[in-house]
């Protein structure tokens, strides 16, 4: 009797997972088609001409680039150097040393010959005390704030307080930006006369690329399976997920690694909040603010501008990162739970938030249950084996094949990887995704949910080798 009840329960759970996965699969297929149509439309467009005009300072608006740094001594100099070399008419770089316990500040002082200066800083957003402000005599548009440790959001808020320009951009201290990325990411903001209030570019994995003096010299692919899988995951997340959502102004994430925001709007929204996913949290608040003020404002994603970031190479680091990301997602969604299915917030309440709750947040939980059902079913006789195979087939479609499609979409449209062998590796590994990578990351992300429920807090930072050094 007990065994029968258990079997019945297992089958019911399995069916729920199956229906869930099929719906998500159909949704992703829709996003894939939408992304394909958009990318094909622009695919042969000259990749420089549309932006040439923006080099004229009278057309472009100045940007304050904020680089929060906490124990980034390995890569900070390279990152800042790459920012000082970007092509944009007017900008300032503000590095915020968030009470690092390593030699981050010393390395900056030594390398850029920083001098302490007196600068009036408005405390419009709450942030921990700033101990000193430095400026580089060699690069007058480089400033470093040395402040007490308060976390990434606190550091960014301090940076916003010190920023002089109407647009702010947050960049992680471990990333390298393509020289023209700014011109590209700013273009829609400038052209729309302020209708676009935030815009994010693509983030890609730098491991495997050749980087010299803070600049990507040759795009390459790491041969470590864990890094290859992350490369595929980034392609899928950005090209499939964000492009489709951005087209309908449904985007709730502008990557924390590279995003530009209108400063007055960020100020009004209250700046960054102290959550694990401060980037998403801000974007949700911006959408919310725009809806509450009844203004048509857009938050968009642009596939072309690329920011290269170092991906974790060990299981331990990757686990920490994913736990943190998922915890951040849950924290943001929970903070804004009143928006869910709330018609007052239009498509954000009725489409975006349900998507993030039921697909992004719940996805790994359902996936994990699916894997467990498959394993259990294999021990329960023929009928269950058949069901297990069905579930496995759907998860292959959901995981491996959609990722393979994302890889091919990248190759068909963007072509960032120059070697044929890179394409072969990416395609081969994408097909193995369901067998090892997805169960692993699904488990880690479930751990993130548990962390959020237990209100566990930590920086969750990974060990840096310094890709840009």
């Amino acid at each position, binding site marked *: 009797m007990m065994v029968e009840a258990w079997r019945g329960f297992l089958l019911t759970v399995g069916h729920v997972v199956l229906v869930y996965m099929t719906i998500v699969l159909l949704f992703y297929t829709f996003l894939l088609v939408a992304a394909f149509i958009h990318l094909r*439309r*622009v*695919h*042969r*467009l*000259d990749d420089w*001409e*549309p932006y040439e*005009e923006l080099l*004229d300072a*009278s*057309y472009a608006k100045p940007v304050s680039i904020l680089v929060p740094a906490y124990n980034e001594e390995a890569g900070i100099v390279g990152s800042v150097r790459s920012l000082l070399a970007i092509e944009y008419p007017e900008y300032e770089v503000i590095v915020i040393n968030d009470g690092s316990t390593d030699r981050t500040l010393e390395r900056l002082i030594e390398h850029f010959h920083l001098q302490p*200066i*007196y*600068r*009036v800083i*408005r405390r419009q957003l709450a942030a921990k005390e700033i101990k000193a402000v430095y*400026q580089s005599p060699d690069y007058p548009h480089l400033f470093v704030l040395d402040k007490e440790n308060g976390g990434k959001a606190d550091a960014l808020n301090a940076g916003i307080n010190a920023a002089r320009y109407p647009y702010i951009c947050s960049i992680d201290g471990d990333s390298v930006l393509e020289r023209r990325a700014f011109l590209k990411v700013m273009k829609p903001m*400038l*052209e*729309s*006369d302020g209708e676009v209030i935030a815009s994010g570019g693509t983030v890609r994995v730098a491991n495997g690329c050749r980087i010299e003096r803070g600049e990507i010299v040759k795009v390459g692919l790491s041969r470590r399976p864990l890094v290859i899988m992350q490369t595929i995951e980034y392609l899928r997340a950005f090209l499939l997920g964000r492009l489709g959502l951005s087209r309908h102004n449904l985007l709730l994430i502008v990557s924390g690694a590279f995003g530009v925001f209108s400063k007055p709007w960020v100020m009004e929204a209250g700046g960054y909040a102290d959550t694990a996913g401060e980037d998403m949290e801000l974007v949700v608040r911006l959408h919310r603010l725009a809806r509450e003020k009844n203004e048509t404002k857009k938050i968009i994603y642009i596939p072309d501008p690329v920011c290269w970031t170092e991906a974790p190479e060990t299981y331990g680091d990757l686990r920490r990162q994913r736990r943190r990301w998922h915890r951040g997602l849950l924290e943001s969604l929970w903070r804004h739970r009143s928006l869910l299915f709330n018609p007052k917030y239009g498509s954000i309440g009725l489409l975006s938030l349900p998507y993030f709750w039921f697909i992004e947040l719940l996805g790994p939980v359902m996936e994990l249950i699916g894997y467990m059902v498959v394993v259990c079913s294999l021990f329960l006789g023929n009928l269950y084996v*058949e069901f297990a*195979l*069905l579930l496995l*087939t*759907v998860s*292959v*479609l959901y995981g491996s*094949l959609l990722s*393979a*499609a994302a890889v*091919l979409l990248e*190759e*068909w449209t963007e*072509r960032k990887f*120059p070697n*044929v062998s890179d*394409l*072969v590796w990416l*395609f081969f590994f994408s097909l193995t995704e369901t067998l090892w990578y997805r169960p692993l990351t699904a488990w880690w992300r479930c751990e993130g949910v548990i962390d959020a429920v237990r209100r566990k807090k930590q920086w969750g930072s990974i060990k840096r080798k310094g890709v840009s050094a």
Partner: protein
Amino acid sequence: MMALLAALAATAVFLALLVSLFLYLVVQKWRENRRQAQLCALKERYHLPLLRYLLGEEEQLPLPSSPLEREAMMELLDHFASLLKGEQVQERIRTLAEMHFQGWLRRRLSSRHWSERMNALFLIEDLQVKAMLPEMERLYRSDRVTRGEEAKLLAIFAQFDYSPVVAYVLEPKYELTEFTYRVIFGHMSERLLRQVEQRFDELPRAGKCAFIDMIGIRRRGERSFLLELLTSDELELRVRALKAMAEIGMPLEAARLERHLCSPHWQERLMAARLAGKCREERLLPLLYERLGDRSFVVRSEAAAAIARLPGGRAVLRTAARTAADRYARDMAKQWLQGEG
């Protein structure tokens, strides 16, 4: 069982599709890499002869005979167009483009792919192929022209000093943004700009703002026009006019400036302070001193910057840093005394 079969079939079909696409893309990538290598070699071969021809050192040029050679030549020509200045060189580039690439450009301009039409427009603009004006006019009038193409076409019309562009900007097909207006006005000759100025009132708000900004950017001496705008009821137009005057360094009497410096709107006070800094009149110092304690941070900062620029200004800042009743004013004066800004 049926569901499993259906799922397996779907997976097999999807996988077959992906594998075929993968094989196709691998072959394509290999061919494209080879083509790029050939293109590079051709560009290398044409580089020097073309450069010499454009600089007038060579009369003859080996002409392209294959599509790949033509592509190599066109890319080089585009490269040189952005690199080499001088009327004679530009004229040679234009003549060469008109002689060899007109047919190619015409075909691209009538392509059904948006990106190809846009690329053709970029080339026409870079190489200054004025002979393509009728085709561009046709594209502009066609129903399929998109917002992006409209903006680019109008900018090229402006560069080519094509008179109908004035009527087009007054009544565009798609609503133009302020940014697009600025780009178009930025390319216009004085002759065309004067025509726009005469019909200023017909411009939409975005066009008006962009036009005023352009007066400042291009340092046009439109004093009476700007002075008239300062009396406008629209705050935005007054602010833009003050900004343009500050850009040009066009002085304004203290009495008039005071009115703007005491405006209830911070944007107007900000621009008035900026203009005051350009006027270099000591009489403005007391007015600006008052603004050091303004309730808006940006106005305080701009006032301090203006004071620092005026004769005797640094002494005023020193006094403010020591004795101003307002803490913000003292801080701001201190910052500017240090020469930071």
